[in-house]
């Protein structure tokens, strides 16, 4: 039997996995650092909360993804005009603009948020199954993109955008594609979140969420799907299991980002790769 607590854990981990896999497409594959991922998560959640009354669950999931990626496209187009090192600041700004906007909108419930979001009607087991199926589908999509020529192009753009362009790669289109796909996933995650909590408030989509997800992507090893999945599961569960870690969550995440950048820029995946390489060459450390 799974109880309410287990269901909560599965839902929370799954939602974070969807967010991390989406951000991994943008930041990991394509090299576009985003500090505003929570805005697209929130957009999906609000879209779902408004639509859930009249539409069926699959339609709501897709719709939430589409609304979020429409915003993603908008931000992406605006970001093309921004120098690479300012992208982080711009996307952080988008996060704050989103919160500031939602907090003042009566039709979105302002500070009080939206309540009475209809039940998903799947039952506990059904909902857990939905979460896991979505995570699996998104991981499979990531894996496919990474192997495809689109992923190859992303890697080139992330490595050296200017040179990629001289080789015929439309870097702007690739960056937009990463933004659109990644924010679509965030929107779907938002819909799942709305169905799960059945009420949403603006503060659930704040800067802390964006930073947490980015930490998972960086600690996992930008671009590595399994690395990001592992980091996401661990970093989501730790604060759930430990009160202290929960209290110092932001401090911990900040420290992890700095330590990873300084000592293991390849993240978990990079560490494992160099361990395996050391073994196979038989060299002593």
């Amino acid at each position, binding site marked *: 039997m799974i109880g309410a607590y287990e269901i909560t854990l599965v839902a929370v981990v799954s939602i974070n996995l969807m967010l991390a896999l989406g951000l991994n497409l943008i930041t990991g594959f394509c090299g576009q650092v985003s500090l505003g991922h929570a805005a697209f998560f929130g957009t999906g959640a609000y879209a779902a909360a408004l639509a859930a009354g009249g539409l069926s669950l699959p339609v709501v999931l897709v719709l939430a993804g589409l609304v979020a990626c429409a915003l993603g496209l908008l931000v992406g187009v605006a970001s093309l005009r921004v120098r690479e090192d300012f992208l982080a600041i711009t996307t952080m700004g988008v996060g704050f603009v989103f919160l500031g906007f939602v907090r003042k909108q009566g039709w979105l419930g302002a500070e009080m948020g939206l309540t009475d979001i209809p039940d998903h009607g799947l039952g506990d087991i059904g909902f857990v199954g939905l979460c896991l199926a979505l995570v699996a589908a998104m991981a499979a999509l990531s894996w496919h*993109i990474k192997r495809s020529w689109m992923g190859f*192009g992303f890697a*080139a753009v992330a490595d050296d955008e200017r040179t990629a*362009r*001289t080789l*015929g790669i*439309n*870097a*702007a289109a690739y960056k937009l*594609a990463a933004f659109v796909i990644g924010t679509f996933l965030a929107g779907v995650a938002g819909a799942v979140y709305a169905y799960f909590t059945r009420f949403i408030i603006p503060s659930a989509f704040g800067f802390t969420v964006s930073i947490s997800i980015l930490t998972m992507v960086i600690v996992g090893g930008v671009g590595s799907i399994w690395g990001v999945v592992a980091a996401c599961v661990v970093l989501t569960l730790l604060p759930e299991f430990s009160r202290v870690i929960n209290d110092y969550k932001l401090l911990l995440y900040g420290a992890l980002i700095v330590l990873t950048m300084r000592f293991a820029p390849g993240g978990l995946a990079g560490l494992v790769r160099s361990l395996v390489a050391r073994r196979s060459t038989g060299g002593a450390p």
Partner: protein
Amino acid sequence: MTTLLAVEDVLVRFGGIVALGGVSFSLAKGELLGLIGPNGAGKTTMLHTVIGVVKPTEGRILVADRDVTRLAPDARARLGVALTHQIVRPFRGLSVLDNVTLAAGFAKTTHLARAIVSVSRTAERARARELLALVGIADYADAAPGVLPLGALKRLEVARALAISPAVLLLDEPLAGLNSVEAARLAATLADLNASGITMILIEHNLAKVAEICPRLVVLDNGRKIADGPTAAVLADPQVIAAYMGQDTSGREPGREAAHAGG
């Protein structure tokens, strides 16, 4: 003869510096043009303007009679313009082979819809291996660019540019950093490729080498074109000799002296 590339009154300003002060020349299909001039003359800027990573303040670039001045570099690459960088720019996160494979897959990367459904890299890898062998760095295929000596990285630039099947190849000092054996080999390879139909602009500071390979030269000095014509005549031009020597040295043999100037 059909004109493949035309540069018309190109003016490039970087802040206060005029890197190119209204340069024009054209290139017929099949030509191998040597672009020479002292350090800082604007040679690299000229090639960057042709591929589009530098936008001219004034003037036009035409490729096969089409005005490409407003086109992005990727669109120009798709029209068949390729560049090798003087200061090498390999994708450091990709293997040597993947650097070339990516370029060889330009037909797949051009359209996103095609890119996302295409997975196989077999044909492009095979093509990339051929090109690595052609420039003599096949042994480095699986290495990371970071471990390659400069001479190999220079040749990687050439292999990668060739991978997009260019109509016009812009070569920014591809021979610099190679030892004399490697340089002679690559020069011969480039001459063969030119004979097989690829139009080229070659920047090279060693005038003896330029004189060997290029039938025609354009000389830049201080952002201005000071000579354009058959190699022997250009190298004998007193103005060219003066630009290279920093003084009027007419009477001396230019090819040998000037080979050590510039840089």
